[in-house]
């Protein structure tokens, strides 16, 4: 009798272990697009070496596709921003704000670059964001501007577009 109970208990335990679980795989839908996208922290140099600069800025959450791109259009002539750098980020649908960070590679040392920023969805749709043109100067060969930006101390805009 005891053996029967033990066998039944073992069977029930093993059956429970082999039952499937309840979670379902779901790809979350994209968030609703924001009507207005505005910069709440101005673009600034987060870190810079003689060949690499990271530009960061914060906007309200633009919504749309979770995968977004920060876009930096840049060049050495403020009237001809002829290069583009893009870096992917993922929006957090629960966050009110989104920080975009873009790596701008293959820069020349000790050179002044002008740039403006934009954001776009993964499929290429631009968010309605207006950005001023700002500038940064790359350090000399082997030098580095450390990654220590202070909140609200962004590079000053030089023009409004």
């Amino acid at each position, binding site marked *: 009798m005891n053996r029967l109970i033990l066998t039944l208990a073992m069977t029930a335990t093993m059956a429970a272990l*082999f039952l499937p679980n309840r979670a379902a795989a*779901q*790809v979350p839908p994209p968030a609703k697009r924001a009507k207005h996208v505005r910069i709440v922290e101005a673009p600034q140099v987060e870190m810079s070496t003689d060949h690499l600069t990271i530009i960061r800025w914060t906007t309200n959450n633009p919504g749309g*596709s979770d995968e977004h791109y920060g876009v930096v259009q840049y060049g050495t002539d403020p009237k001809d921003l002829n290069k583009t750098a893009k870096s992917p980020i993922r929006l957090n649908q629960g*966050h009110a704000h989104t920080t975009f960070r873009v*790596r701008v590679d293959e820069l020349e040392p000790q050179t002044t670059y002008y740039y403006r920023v934009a954001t776009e969805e993964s499929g290429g749709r631009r968010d309605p964001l207006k950005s001023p043109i700002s500038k940064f100067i790359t350090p000399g060969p082997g030098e580095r501007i450390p990654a220590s930006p202070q909140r609200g101390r962004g590079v000053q805009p030089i023009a409004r577009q």
Partner: protein
Amino acid sequence: MKVLLQTCAVVAVPLLLVSCSGANAADPASPPTYNPYPSGILPADVESETARVQSEVQSIFQQALAEANALPPATVTGQPPTQQGSGYQSIATLGKLMNFDVNMSALKNMACASCHMPYAGFGGPIPSVNLTMIAYPGTYHFRAGKRTPPRYTYSPFFPALAYDDTAAAFFGGNFWDGRSTGYLLQSPDAEQAQHPPLDSQEMGLPDSACIAWRLSQSQYVAIFERVWGAGSLTGINFPSNTEQICSTPAGAASFGTSVTPVNLSPTDRNRANVIFDHWGQSISAFEKSKQVSAFTSKFDAYLENQYTMTSDELAGYNLFKGKGNCNSCHLDGRGTTLTPGQTDNSTAAQANPLFTCFGYTNEGLPLNPRDAFYYQTTPDALGFTPNPDGFGYRDLALGTFLRSGYGSAPNPNAEWIPLAPKSDGRFQVATARNAAMAPSQCPTTEAPGPYFQKGFFHNGYIKSLKQLVHFYNTRDVFPFAVTSGHCPAGTTEKVDCWPMPEVRNNLDMTTGKLGLTDQEENQIVAFLQTLTDGYTTPYPNIDSFTGQCTTGGTASTQGNETLIPTPPLPPCSSNVCAIAPFPNPAIP
């Protein structure tokens, strides 16, 4: 019109399983050991540790046999026919037998589980391998793969790989590079289980028909046919040299370019293919059961108000979904970002959040020069060279797969090929669940321990969860244009020096400079540890580890004693980087 269900059959299948140990046919002769590695690349204990794991695997295989013998009689009824009452249990038990069966490798010395043991969250079970060569030795010692074994807890919950036009991104699939799409079986996990047995550097069977052959010789033919139907495993007219072929590791020069060296009639080939699909589906059923994907963590208990997080765990959770922004990819399915005074009263979006977005991202891991793959540049005794490109190989992950490229698998959707440049360097976002799982006797991944050494990310460069969080936090705070092993004097690699990414393209910038303090990093680690199964119910076989724990040191520099200088890197091989559509920008 009323549809009447008819009982079509009541079948009680006597399993007649034999509870015995060892292979069921003569063990094939091993070819001479392949050792192209410089001194120090193979861990000194690789042979004893491989034997240790094999012993553990065989012990759990015996356990599975006992469970199979204890199955209640099968009752197949209804239309479509269904094994009433015990169907789930039967197929998962069959999958468990397959998963722990060492006979499913060419040389009968390696099971799926040999790289995926329960106590490691079904990830890599050998601490010294995780610490050094990161890719596991295959059936032919010591060929090895190129990446860490992904944990397969919760892998059955990933959807089939798809490009979502709305999100303009890939979701789903299995493997680090997504090459197990699930396009055919509509289960990437089931298809994933079909890859390692045929991988030349893993289980090494040279033909998928070898799975049907070895299953037909196994100790669990009866349970296979209980699940998949009488006669489903027998009746194939295998040629007399089948075992000889299946005992020759894949890639052998003697096979030439043939991928079907077992000579079968078209009818028998189709039957073997069906069995091969059942192999994958059965293993996936096991992986989806509570024996593997248990949902028994502290966090699961917390969701049901059965566990109160410690102050550090709760702080870590708030950082995870707030300042750390971890849940932008590792979705917790809940509300987020509380401001002071607010209370989280959101309901879970999913009953059991999986802590992944099923997506792909390039986090910018440095090339790990300890990866055994780089050294396999000479032919083994069978004339196979695992990696002719040596250090010219670059791991473009999803991008290479979309190109049907070197070291990956054929892409079954030509529409995806143009998306390869946008996908270069992107690896699958793993679930954060069970990242911290470790054996009972060394129940942490973090020094000073006693701890169980794991390797994190696709190339195992990161050796602790503390380092993992620190990497996300400071990758762009301490970037250096050097390769691993060459951090400048006065800096410490992984602490205040991060070598450059192996692949710069598509580098994800969600993280890299989070502004977390040291204490906040530790709190996120504490939260990650709440995602380990086994809190509400003991995790099956968590105690099956028979190896040694490690003690000493600190989590921040864990494993740094094994860093080696990356040699000068040759340009990216044309096998990888010169396949259209080309990476943009070009990869050096």
